């Protein structure tokens, strides 16, 4: 479903990668590995179309992403380095508005149920500024629980600042996503294993 063909990318004068190609079929997961500064985030942003490669192309369902941005974005759930969580909004509002701009409408009730699952029961209406780093991260990740309609998940360091229990929860959602025939691309410094699903590794060199 997701194909990268001969991607070249340079940031400033530094060449991050050259001739990078891979293909990801439905139900597959790609783990992008590499030391800090090796271009993991850049690659993810390239895949979502936020950046343009110097040469090569990214294809989603056989179409070049540059030509059909909308058809990629309909299927895309992206979780970036910055969590897109507003300090002045509560967890519930963050989740509702966050999903609304990705084109998913949910009721406050659905939002509360998901936040409860992510260990934020009773804190749904607390402004995010009063939450800890890990809890804010949980608010951001709770989008995954409602992202079933999105076929492609691109996650930048989803496990940062999470405790073991939350990591298990996220892995559970990743397994479900793959089970539904979705694709996942993510970066992580944590060892990731999913039962019954192969994880393809992509190592970026420094």
């Amino acid at each position, binding site marked *: 479903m997701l194909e990268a063909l001969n991607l070249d990318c340079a940031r400033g004068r530094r060449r991050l990668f050259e001739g990078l190609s891979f293909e990801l079929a439905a139900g597959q997961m790609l783990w992008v590995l590499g030391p800090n500064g090796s271009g993991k985030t850049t690659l993810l942003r390239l895949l979502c179309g936020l950046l343009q490669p110097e040469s090569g192309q990214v294809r989603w369902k056989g179409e070049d992403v540059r030509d059909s941005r909308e058809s990629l974005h309909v299927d895309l759930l*992206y979780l970036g380095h910055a969590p897109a969580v507003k300090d002045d*909004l509560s967890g519930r509002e963050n989740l509702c508005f966050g999903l609304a701009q990705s084109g998913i409408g949910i009721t406050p009730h659905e939002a509360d149920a998901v936040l409860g699952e992510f260990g934020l029961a009773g804190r749904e209406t607390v402004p995010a500024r009063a939450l800890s780093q890990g809890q804010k991260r949980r608010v951001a990740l709770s989008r995954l629980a409602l992202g079933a309609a999105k076929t492609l998940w691109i996650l930048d360091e989803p496990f940062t600042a999470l405790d073991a229990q939350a990591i298990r929860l996220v892995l559970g959602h990743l397994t479900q996503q793959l089970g539904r025939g979705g694709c996942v691309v993510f970066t992580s410094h944590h060892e990731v294993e999913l039962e019954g699903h192969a994880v393809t590794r992509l190592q970026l060199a420094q």
Partner: protein
Amino acid sequence: MTPLGAAPVFAAIVRRDLTLALRRRSDVLTTFFFFVIVVSLFPLGVTTQSSVLRSIAPGVVWVAALLASMLALVRLFAPDFDDGTLEQLALSPQPLVVLMIAKVLAHWLVSGLPLVLVAPLLGLQFDLPVQALGILALTLLVGTPCLSLIGAIGAALTLGIRGAGGLLALLVLPLYIPVLIFGASAVSAAVGGMSVSGHLSVLGACLLIALVLGPWASAAAVRIAME
């Protein structure tokens, strides 16, 4: 879970930005009181002669509105840029141009509309005749959305730049000149008892042009800022 079309997404963004403005009232009030105070300084500082005041009023109010709207522009995209929300907007399945209009609309409602509403009151300090007060509010009602739309382009272009505020002023203020000229001269004409329909038509044309080109240019600038 239901898929949303462009209209609900548009409404959600406006609602979110209004909620945020309500939670951070101080930001909104700063713009508003800046406008009120700058306009009020002129009768105190320049003269108490009502003929002079009447002739400087249109320019003073309009320049103050320009500066106040500049002051508010810094907050249009920068917070969203910093916390990753803008990235999410750029990746939305809905056209970014439409979402830009939503951002600008919410921004105008909290930073432009209050100026329109308070302007007639401030006009009284300049001894403006009643029908000129009405025209003043009307020109601001047509002109301030223009300022927000044009300003959004500058705000998007200066994302991620150090000292963005100063550069933003240099970029945007020259583009405000047509709005300033026709806005202020309409009020002057009203003070002089002349017809204002010509000025208002040009101001309306400015708004239409800004409405067509502004969101499109800001969307392009936001995409550039993402790189």
